[in-house]
């Protein structure tokens, strides 16, 4: 008897040790460039590109960080990116999960055709719709001095201009639809028999069950906006409306790059994304313990 227990315990230990071994090796491979970036941001210039490479700085310097934050109004850039990122995320979470729910759980005419047409909008490279999209933003009716047919500057250089044309809701619709397809129909029917409205079903039955996927969508929406570069540059016309990624350009000129400050600023700019991930991934654990959707 006790010998058997010992063996099970031994096996369990071996299994856990095995898991950790794999975790550590993979973690090393995956985090290497990030670690290099962080270490580089503390190196003096002469050690940045020396060969053989210096991994750990012989002298830790803060100069690059000081220089980075003196070089550009990063406070303003962070604010603009945060406003854009948060509003995009909130809008995306609500509207796309609503549509994703409808595509997964209702039948209506031309459903598949509409869905496919939506998906098709992701298949065109952004570069070729850039100019027409810019014109849509500029001529957007009744914004920025526009009449019905333009005349002013529309959404150019405004927060709605940063947010609106770049929501990418189709991505979220597709993602949430795939998840809601796994939601048991019995749940919805039970709520209907209880007399709940369809919207209430979405809000109180579907959404709580979809926590992990909403977390995923939040991570994606936020990072996508945070990392974007071309659209915010094109749609804004003043430094005060620029976002963090454009701020990073301050360290890059036509043929050369100021590596130290660039790495320092990049580390700082990346941190919010790591935080957003860390905060959101908690809901993955919760999903397990509460066992997600029970029938």
């Amino acid at each position: 008897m006790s010998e058997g227990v010992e063996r099970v315990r031994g096996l369990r230990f071996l299994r856990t040790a095995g898991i950790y071994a794999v975790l550590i090796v993979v973690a090393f491979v995956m985090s290497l460039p990030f670690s290099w970036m962080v270490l580089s941001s503390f190196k003096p210039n002469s050690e940045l590109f020396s060969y053989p490479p210096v991994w750990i700085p012989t002298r830790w310097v803060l100069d690059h960080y000081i220089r980075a934050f003196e070089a550009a109004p990063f406070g303003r850039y962070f604010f603009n990116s945060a406003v854009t990122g948060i509003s995009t995320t909130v809008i995306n979470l609500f509207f796309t999960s609503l549509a994703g729910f409808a595509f997964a759980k209702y039948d209506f005419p031309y459903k598949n055709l509409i869905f496919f047409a939506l998906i098709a909008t992701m298949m065109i490279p952004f570069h070729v719709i850039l100019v027409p999209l810019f014109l849509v933003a500029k001529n957007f009716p009744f914004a920025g001095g526009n009449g019905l047919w333009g005349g002013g500057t529309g959404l150019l250089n405004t927060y709605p201009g940063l947010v609106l044309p770049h929501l990418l809701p189709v991505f979220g619709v597709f993602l949430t639809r795939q998840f809601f397809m796994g939601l048991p129909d019995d749940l919805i029917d039970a709520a209907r028999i209880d007399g709940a409205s369809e919207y209430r079903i979405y809000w109180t039955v579907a959404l709580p069950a979809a926590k992990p996927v909403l977390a995923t969508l939040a991570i994606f929406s936020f990072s996508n906006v945070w990392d974007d570069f071309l659209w915010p540059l094109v749609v804004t016309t003043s430094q005060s409306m620029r976002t963090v990624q454009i701020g990073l350009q301050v360290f890059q000129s036509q043929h050369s790059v100021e590596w130290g400050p660039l790495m320092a600023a990049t580390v700082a700019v990346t941190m919010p994304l790591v935080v957003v991930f860390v905060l959101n991934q908690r809901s993955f654990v919760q999903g397990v313990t509460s066992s997600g959707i029970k029938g």
Partner: protein
Amino acid sequence: MKRLLAVVLIAAITLLTSFAAGASEVATVRVWFAGTAEPMMRVVNEQLLPAFHQAHPGIRIEVDFIPWNELSPKLLTSFAGNVAPDLFMHGQAATAGFASAGVLEPLDEYLEKSPGMLEDFGASLDAGLYEGKRYMIPVYGSGTLLAYRADFYEEVGLDPNNPPRTWEELRESALKLARKRGNRFEREGISVRIAAAQQDWSPFLWQNGGELFSEDGKQVLFDSPEAIEALEFYVSLFDDAIADKRENQPIGNLPVLAAGAVAQEFTTVENLKTIATYAPDVYPNVRVAPPLTRVQPAAWYSFAGFFMAKQSANKEATWEVLQFLTSPEALEALTYSLSGLPPRASLAGVPHVAEDPNVIAFMDGLSAARFNPNIPIWVNARDALERQIERAIRGIVSPAEALRTAADEVRQLLADLGN
């Protein structure tokens, strides 16, 4: 009804405010700088703008800084949306595309009315020449010259004060400098580009008396015997005893010259600055040679400068701003912040040029400067050339065949556009 009222009200307010703006005394000139390098932005924001606004209370400059890589999308969208700036900075390569589309203001008349500018800028104004008209006032220049390591020269018994002047001398020095271990190079004798080779190869063509295009841009000339000979020589720089057929990727932006993996390469002033910053102990050993020569000396140079939009509403004020931004004082500060070459002859002696013998070499090289041609199909021509040059280097086709294929492709394109 209410909605209609609102629309009318909004329209009225818009009209009123636009009249109000028109009626005020201050003219606004919008200027886009190319590049977002912090030292340049600082010079513009803290030095140039306050000085200008103080001297010209009737004109307000509104500046923006656009990263080089996104200059094209940004300019195209703004022209499409009728919100283009009055002045924008770009490389000379943009001249033909924008000028042929008729969106640029020719600057010859303005230049003639402004004493001293023509003489002081000299040939650098030709960098923005398209169909006989000048469209660009240069801000700073760049070029490629042969850079070499003096310590390696001494090591193999070459005189570091007497770098190669001719093709033959270049080859000889490369053979001497190369060092192999087994079949791998410890140090290549010279490194020239394999992909994007047009910039490195064209000087050999010009030195040999050849041309890329005819003066009017209508005839393709880069498959001439001179061109073929130049490419044959270029390919011979990948001799087994000189270098291998691998592109030397810079580490970060640090040229491989600094790591000692090559002994000589064609490089720019900006690259030298990178070496001075990230490999300060190596920099004293880096030297720059004058342009090579065969029939004539020639070296590749290029300028970036300001263009004026034809749709600019206030051209007088815009020219005023342009004159100020390209004045000797402004250009001294700008070229310093960009570590570029000043385009005005009168700036040859400013400290950031005269202090570094390597920068002086680049200034002296300007006397043999050649530019890429300003023709609308240049980008296509360059891409076709570079594709074929790479095939020649890798031994897939002969140099003659490579240049003929590229030339035929470009002739086809010219014919297409002709009808």
